[in-house]
């Protein structure tokens, strides 16, 4: 038996023992665990599952074990994924700690920063959010104005961030601030970590067209930042911030699934839903024009998934090339939006319910997911920005 096969058997056994039965079904959206001090566990098994996984470091399987991670190789990680999928085990926790700031600290953080923050992410003790965008900045991220001044033994931050996703649940925020107002736009920016449990930080949720408030405005009013909470060099935060954006783009595009599953497929396969609401005629979906469009979308999703797998296979480290994240962000969000538009067409008036008994949970969820999907091509660098990046960085087209 190879070492990997041995690992598979061990993992299978461990999961069998440590994954509660109620964690082996797909997770309702309102029960996704994000961790942090405000986390409430609707199902106590969720906390047990999280603690069990965290004890192995498997909430962050490929992070080094000295920071609390699982220390797995890429091959072992894939085995773990496989085995979890085998029993339909849900992810014990997710969030920006894992997908964004964790990998960024691994790249750019000091030894002390890694030791301070990573284990608390792994255990679910601390939840993070991101402070990048500002009112009026939008896609022109580097025009940010939030000011960070050196007060000798600490920094003081003043300004406003917007689209801070999940800020109302977060304990810490990583953020881009301006430390050198006179410098050219992309210089003079720094990347700092701010403890949100202080009077200088105020959070206000934004109501979206979907009726949800996943984002907030976050205000800094003489917020205090420790001197050792600067990531990377002073005034060189743009480099750190850009690298982090790639993690964000991967995550918005659904890249993290490695292409194994289409985006939004949690709600069921598009073609299955279409058949459910429209029916078949001679074995084929009864609306032939919609059928063609559904097939086209499923073909595109499959080709997209294969492309994600190809890029992972081509890369030694299991990481994705810079330009690829832009492609995945762009194509993933556009194909995802299209999928939901097709689902609306398939479900007809039942797809547009807002509330009340005339619509079941799946239907009401769709309406709001559809509306929320529109942010996919706006947030984290709009589709237009991604196309600009591809044109410039990959194709080398002139400015």
């Amino acid at each position, binding site marked *: 038996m190879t070492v990997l096969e041995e690992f598979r058997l061990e993992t299978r056994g461990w999961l069998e023992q440590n994954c509660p039965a109620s964690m082996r079904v797909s997770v309702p959206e309102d029960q996704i665990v994000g961790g942090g001090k405000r986390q409430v566990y609707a199902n106590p098994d969720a906390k047990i599952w999280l603690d069990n996984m965290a004890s192995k470091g498997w909430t962050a399987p490929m992070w080094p074990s000295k920071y609390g991670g699982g220390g797995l190789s890429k091959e072992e990680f894939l085995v773990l994924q496989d085995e979890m999928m085998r029993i339909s085990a849900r992810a014990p926790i997710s969030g920006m700690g894992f997908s964004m700031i964790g990998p960024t600290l691994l790249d750019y953080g000091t030894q002390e920063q890694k030791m301070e923050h990573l284990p608390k992410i792994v255990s679910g003790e601390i939840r993070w959010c991101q402070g990048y965008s500002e009112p009026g900045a939008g896609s022109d991220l580097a025009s940010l104005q939030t000011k960070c001044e050196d007060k000798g033994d600490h920094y003081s931050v003043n300004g406003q961030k917007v689209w801070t996703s999940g800020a109302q649940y977060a304990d810490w925020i990583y953020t881009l601030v301006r430390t050198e107002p006179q410098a050219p736009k992309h210089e003079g920016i720094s990347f700092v970590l701010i403890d949100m449990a202080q009077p200088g930080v105020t959070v206000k949720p934004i109501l979206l067209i979907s009726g949800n408030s996943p984002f907030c405005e976050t205000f800094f009013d003489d917020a205090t930042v420790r001197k050792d909470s600067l990531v990377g060099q002073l005034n060189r935060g743009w480099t750190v911030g850009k690298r982090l954006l790639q993690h964000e783009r991967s995550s918005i595009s659904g890249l993290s699934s490695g292409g194994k599953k289409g985006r939004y497929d949690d709600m069921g396969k598009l073609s299955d839903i279409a058949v459910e609401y429209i029916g078949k005629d001679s074995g084929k979906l009864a609306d032939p024009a919609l059928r063609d469009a559904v097939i086209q979308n499923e073909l595109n999703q499959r080709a997209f998934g294969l492309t994600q797998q190809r890029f992972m296979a081509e890369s030694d480290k299991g990481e994705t090339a810079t330009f690829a994240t832009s492609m995945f962000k762009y194509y993933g969000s556009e194909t995802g939006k299209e999928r939901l538009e097709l689902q609306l067409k398939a479900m007809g008036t039942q797809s547009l319910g807002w509330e*009340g008994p005339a619509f079941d949970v799946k239907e009401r969820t769709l309406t709001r997911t559809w509306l929320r999907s529109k942010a996919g091509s706006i947030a984290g660098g709009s589709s237009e920005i991604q196309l600009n990046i591809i044109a410039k960085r990959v194709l080398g087209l002139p400015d």
Partner: protein
Amino acid sequence: MPLVLNEEQNMLKDAAKDFCTNSTPISQLRGLRDGASESGFDTDTWQQMVDLGWAGITIPEDFGGLGFGYLGMGVVMEECGRTLTASPLLSTAVLGAGAIIHGGSDELKGDLLPQVAGGELLLALAVEETPHHNPYGATTTAEKSGDGYKVTGSKKFVLDGHVANKIVVVARTSGNAGDRDGLTLVLVDSGAGVNVTRTIMADSRNAANIEFSGAQGVLLGEEGKGADVLDKVLDAGRILLSAEMLGGVQECFERTIEYLKVREQFGVPIGSFQGLKHRAAQMFCEVELSKSVVLEALSCLDDDSEQVGELASLAKARLNDTYNLVSSEGVQMHGGIGMTDEYEIGFFMKRSRVCEHSLGNSAFHRDRYGVIQGY
């Protein structure tokens, strides 16, 4: 098919624009939504619309209406579409009144149409039984009972069904679901044997699911030949809804263009980026083509032309797609603030999709157009 408005129609349009801008801005719809209004529209506003004569625009003068025709109603609907005005105009003055005009006896017309024009009577047309438009799909039954008919079955997505005093029900007296023959229109009072559940839709407008359990009503048109009346009523509804959508399309497009001019990114207005310019110019073409088809379709209605059916499908299919495009691009081009509930652009996107699924989506109307053209 004049393809231009006459002076009378232009005056009506100007008056409608004034009224909608001042009395029914989008903030009214937001208020109705946030206040969880039971009727889903403002009754004072509706009375003002009635006072302006709008409820009777297409009702002949003999029956208390203005007899201004469909082009007249079209310009009013278009202006209502610009401000997303919630009112029972389509359900009552177009669909319900249309069924009575085309199917009612002279006595019934003389009785009911003046009440419609006077705003005393609200109507609804109950046709759908599934989430997809299917005019001949009725399985709801109508059985002879005394002078009239008893109706049994359930209907979905009945526009303004929750406030209507009387409901035109598309029922079946013979044949099977899908047959054009055997349909019968029955006008029932919203009362005994009628169980109404309002459906709260994403666009904050108004529809209902309705159960009929032996509700008593009177015949409109001929028994078994209801589709002859129904087709006319639906085509008028499709075309007038297209007119409303045209208003939404234009307003949404103009707001987006305006935003492109004022919003700055990277130190310049985002409207200076060619990527957005080209998409804006392409939308402009679609909007112009949309104006033409709505105008032509309304003219055909007024002329009672044989081409009404194909023009209705041309108009509805095009407006479905154009409204979908322009409202999606509207949100995308507004960026982050387009996603906020505070900003009004998202209201157009919600309305567009509900309109799209009312009275036939594009697949339905393209298929129908092909069938009419014989292929």
